[in-house]
């Protein structure tokens, strides 16, 4: 089989490996609990939160600690030689013994776990960020005296549960299920402050736009199920493998049912459909508009959404089924282009924002653009790497922003801050670390991952994919802007003189705020160690830990079709994307990217570093207005909803009540009129009756006379 051959060569082992090893290690048996702990905390917080100290926060913290511990254990297990674990936990449809469904359709819809290095990594990230967000919430929500805390912590619990379950879903349908649940949770949390007007509206927008994306995703899921009869991610009978077999001329594929178009066309359609969900959830152009609005939610929630859960889900999905996407050059090109463009596009908007969280929101969009760029550009490891580092430093930045917001009494306007660095040193230090990571400055985490993204894209682009070069161009340009807006933010917030009284005397923040910041700050500094791709030629490929990890090198058994090297194989195969890699040293492009980043930071320093910085962006004039209005993206989308769909529905309503119901009522009216006419025959005058009677008789007489031939 193709999968097996690929990995024998790549992993260099002579034995024929088990494709999936069914580990009997206890920790894998406990794996379901990783997601179930937060679910339990959801119920506990919801129903008992009122009677618990801290409004249910403790349940959440305990649950996430447990999840984190289990996840770490899993990672260790995989790192010291365990195997991929796949288990069907629950049969959704067709589970009964001698099931009529199975008997008839031959398939069942199941929920199961797929724990491989990718999933394990993501589990750790999610549970870690969630834990920190819970902790931070103690300072941000509890200490601020918010009401509705049980609801809040219940929401966090459900959110974490959904995301964790999504992460180790073993099939696309289950992934979709939790993908949707993630969306609902974000709706509930963004709209947490439901008494105000903006949060519910933002929540609605977030759900609607992501649902629009999910619409395509669901079609994709259904279509994949219909095409392959399965939605499993991994295994001989997974749709990924079947698709590869279907396209591979050397392998005889069976059981693929395409509706009358060639397989590669149809698979491309499938890929694009699934991509719809990704674009919506990961806030890629043009479905990114919900994300900045989502800042209406509590800041810890923003951190959770942007760093590890909702938005990450989209990109993670691409990584999860990368074996499928790697087969489809068109889809990859689209992913790369969307990613690169979004990276640049969002960065430009971030330049002019005045609210701290808005800058971070656009930066999130931009950074997820990079991940998409990486995945589209053939850099599977790079994408995952950036996902990881971004999760850390973006969570850090949001939590830091939250800290600032607490200090500023919920004023988010950066122009009313300034000089906070002396008053909140911990926050400043950690925020700075996060910012340097975001800007991609050596040696912070973001530098390594962003460079790898750009390098992979460039390498594959130079290998004969000009579209990737365009995407690379976008991405490289965005590096400059990232540096600029990041440090504009840092300078405006922390440097210079305090510009308002609040900034002069900010509220102090507690340990529950600082602890997460410190943890994340440290990780932001050292996170790059995971995969120092720029130095590949120096430190040697085997010391690129993440790469080795994702390739399954630490495991006893072979990762097979889920391994990074398999993906490269497919990417370069003729039946796959057909990418070619140029032999390029990562050092050169790395330096270029660093220079770009430094240019951006330097520009920010030049423009905003003074004691009392001026708004420089106003010089952009109308361009600034366009940027401030987000290229009128919200306007046209709002217009599509309220300016087009709503009036259309009103017209339809008029049509319905007027014409369709009018016809129904009209039939009634006509009957009534006929009735009135018939009623009028009865004049009350008996002579008329006699006349009518005689006349009718005469009529009958003539009629039947003619027929009967009486005359």
């Amino acid at each position, binding site marked *: 089989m193709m999968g097996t051959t690929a990995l024998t060569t790549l992993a260099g082992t002579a034995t024929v490996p088990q494709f999936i090893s069914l580990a009997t290690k206890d920790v894998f048996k406990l794996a379901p609990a990783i997601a179930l702990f937060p679910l339990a905390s959801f119920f506990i917080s919801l129903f008992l939160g009122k009677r618990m100290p801290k409004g249910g926060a403790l349940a959440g913290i305990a649950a996430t600690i447990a999840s984190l511990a289990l996840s770490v254990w899993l990672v260790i297990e995989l790192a010291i030689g365990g195997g991929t674990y796949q288990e069907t936990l629950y049969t*959704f*449809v067709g589970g009964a013994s001698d*099931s009529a469904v199975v008997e008839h359709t031959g398939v069942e819809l199941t929920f199961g776990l797929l724990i491989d290095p990718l999933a394990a990594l993501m589990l750790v990230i999610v549970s870690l960020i969630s834990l920190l967000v819970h902790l931070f919430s103690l300072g941000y929500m509890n200490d601020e005296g918010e009401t509705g805390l049980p609801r809040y912590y219940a929401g966090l619990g459900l959110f974490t549960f959904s995301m964790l379950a999504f992460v180790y879903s073993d099939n696309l349908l289950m992934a979709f299920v939790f993908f949707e649940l993630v969306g609902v949770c974000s709706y509930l949390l963004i709209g947490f402050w439901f*008494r*105000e007007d903006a949060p519910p509206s933002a929540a609605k927008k977030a759900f609607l736009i992501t649902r629009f994306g999910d619409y395509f995703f669901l079609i994709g899921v259904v*279509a994949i199920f219909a095409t392959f009869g399965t939605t499993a991610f991994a295994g001989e009978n997974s749709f990924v493998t079947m698709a590869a077999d279907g396209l591979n001329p050397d392998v005889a594929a069976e059981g693929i049912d395409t509706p009358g178009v060639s397989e590669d066309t149809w698979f491309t359609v499938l890929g694009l459909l699934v991509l719809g969900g990704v674009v919506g959830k990961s806030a890629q152009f043009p479905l990114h508009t919900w994300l900045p609005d989502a800042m209406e939610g509590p800041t810890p929630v923003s951190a959770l959404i942007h760093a590890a859960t909702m938005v990450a889900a989209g990109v993670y999905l691409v990584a999860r089924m990368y074996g499928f996407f790697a087969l489809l050059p068109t889809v990859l090109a689209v992913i790369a282009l969307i990613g690169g463009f979004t990276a640049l596009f969002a960065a430009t908007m971030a330049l002019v924002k005045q609210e701290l969280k808005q800058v971070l929101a656009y930066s999130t969009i931009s950074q997820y653009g990079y991940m998409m760029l990486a995945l589209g550009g053939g850099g599977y490891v790079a994408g995952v790497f950036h996902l990881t580092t971004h999760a850390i430093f973006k969570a850090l930045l949001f939590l830091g922003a939250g800290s600032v917001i607490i200090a500023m009494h919920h004023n988010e306007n950066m122009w009313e801050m300034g000089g906070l660095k002396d008053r909140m040193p911990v926050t400043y230090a950690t925020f700075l670390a996060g910012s340097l990571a975001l800007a991609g400055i050596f040696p912070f985490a973001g530098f390594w991952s962003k460079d790898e993204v750009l390098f992979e894209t460039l390498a594959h682009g130079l290998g004969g994919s000009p579209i990737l070069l365009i995407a690379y161009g976008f991405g490289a340009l965005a590096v400059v802007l990232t540096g600029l807006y990041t440090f504009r933010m840092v300078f405006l917030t922390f440097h210079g003189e305090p510009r308002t009284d609040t900034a002069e005397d900010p509220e102090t923040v507690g340990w529950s705020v600082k602890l997460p910041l410190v943890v994340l700050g440290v990780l932001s500094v050292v996170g790059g160690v995971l995969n120092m791709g720029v130095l590949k030629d120096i430190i040697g490929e085997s010391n690129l830990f993440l790469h080795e990890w994702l390739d399954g090198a630490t495991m006893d058994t072979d990762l097979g079709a889920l391994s990074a090297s398999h993906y490269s194989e497919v990417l370069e195969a003729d039946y796959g994307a057909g990418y070619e890699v140029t032999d390029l040293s990562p050092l050169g492009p790395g330096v270029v990217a660093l220079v770009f980043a430094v240019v951006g930071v330097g520009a920010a320093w030049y423009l905003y570093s003074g004691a009392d910085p001026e708004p420089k962006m106003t010089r952009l004039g109308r361009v600034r207005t366009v940027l401030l209005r987000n290229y009128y993206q919200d306007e046209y989308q709002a217009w599509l909803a309220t300016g087009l769909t709503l009036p259309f*529905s009103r017209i339809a309503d008029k049509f*319905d009540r007027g014409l*369709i119901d009018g016809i129904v009522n009209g039939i009634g009216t006509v009957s009534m009129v006929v009735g009135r006419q018939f009623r009028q025959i009865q004049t009350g005058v008996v002579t008329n009756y006699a006349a009518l009677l005689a006349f009718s008789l005469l009529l009958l007489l003539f009629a039947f006379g003619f027929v009967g031939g009486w005359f």
Partner: protein
Amino acid sequence: MIVEAVLAVTLTGALLVAVGPDRYAAKLATVVSVLPLAGSLWMWTEYAGEGNALLESGEVAFQTTVEWLTLGQYTLQWYVGVDGISLPLLVLTTVLTTLALVSSWTPIDERQSQFYGLMLLLETALIGVFVSLDFFLWFVFWEGVLIPMYFLIAVWGGPRRKYAAIKFLVYTNIASLIMFAGLFALIFGLGDSITTLSLPEITQAVLADELGSFAGLEPDTLKMFAFFLLFLGFAVKVPLVPFHTWLPDAHVEAPTPVSVMLAGVLLKMGTYALLRFNFTMLPDVAADYALLIAAFGVVSVIYGAVLALAQRDMKRIVAYSSISSMGYVIIGLIAYTPHGLGGATFQMISHGLISGLLFMTVGVIYNATHTRMVGDMSGLANRMPWTVGIFITGAFGYMGLPLMSGFAAEVLVFIGAFQTSVVPAAPLLTALSMFGIVIVAGYLLWAMQQTLFGSFELETDYEIGPAPIHDVASIGVLLGLVVLLGVAPDLIYETIQDGVNPLVDFAGAALTGGA
């Protein structure tokens, strides 16, 4: 005899409650309704039928056959029994009736004994519809549904209740007669090959190609003609666009518990009948016109959803979205795939529960606020947190949120519809209809934002606080069922599959043979 017992108990209860004093009517009726509920649940646990009742291989459970009378060559029978398709609907009916009765306690404060008597009478007729296997008996119950429903809308309804009630009665009655004519075209076409009007006999005779010509129509034309009339008749009941206009009026005017029954069970009569008659008896005609039928479904889905966008009355919103949801059933049915037919049946149950849930919740809100207009109120979440919580969850259920029954149903329908070879361009049509899930999210989210969130304001002069415990309990139970079926669709899906599978088998054979 359990079927007879259930029917008899319900009918007796109806009469008893109707003549009893108002004071005890509510509680008495609720207690009485527990009996058929228990009976149906017992049937559920004891169910040992197999296959589709109408087809040759089917084994009908709890079957009784008694000759009633002979009219011409036809013997009319008391012939009842259930299979995997009708049993879930039967249970749905009894469950929803009991819950609807509980939800009547608050809003119904006049002429109670009549109200509760009629509700139980309605239940009797509905149960009858789902258990009858003789056409004529079935038709008696089918028409019998109209009478209590008419009164329930006309007496206890809103301001335009009389208009709505008579429109409902006349419109659906005309539809019944059209359908009746359609089936009789078939029966007469069968000539001497049948001696009873039992549905299995008719079905098997039609399928065995024993149809002769009748009234100058060749068998094929006759089939088409009959199919057309049947479809038209049932389309009104379902309702499919453009035969739907009675529904919003009826829903808006009907008191909440009646809306629950209307949306929850009455609409299912239409799809149930479509499945039993059109799609079981005349699969080849259905296949010939598959594109048209699927188009009806798609148009209903989209058009109903778009109209829901334009509404301010929350009941109207749910009413139009019911039209939309029933469109999915049609799309699933015409697919003739296991998941298509099974998913459609599942959607009947699921929509029954979810629409019942939403109507009840709107009713609970209405009991407190005395308005249903989006815009007349805001920030209800401040005052009735649990009700609002259930409402939000239910609304997400309606949007097809995973792990709630709507999702399971819709996904199964989509999978089934996507795969079919019966409908031309099935993937495209399915994808088109799926856009309904976006629109439904649009209007429900909009309505929720307007009414539930923001600061508390209310146009009407009522003090509102948390809803009565029995109201919250009944919507809670429904929500529980919705989640239960969403998490474990197999609970009923196996039974349903058992009922529809034979249909797929023979239809598949017939259709591929024909095509």
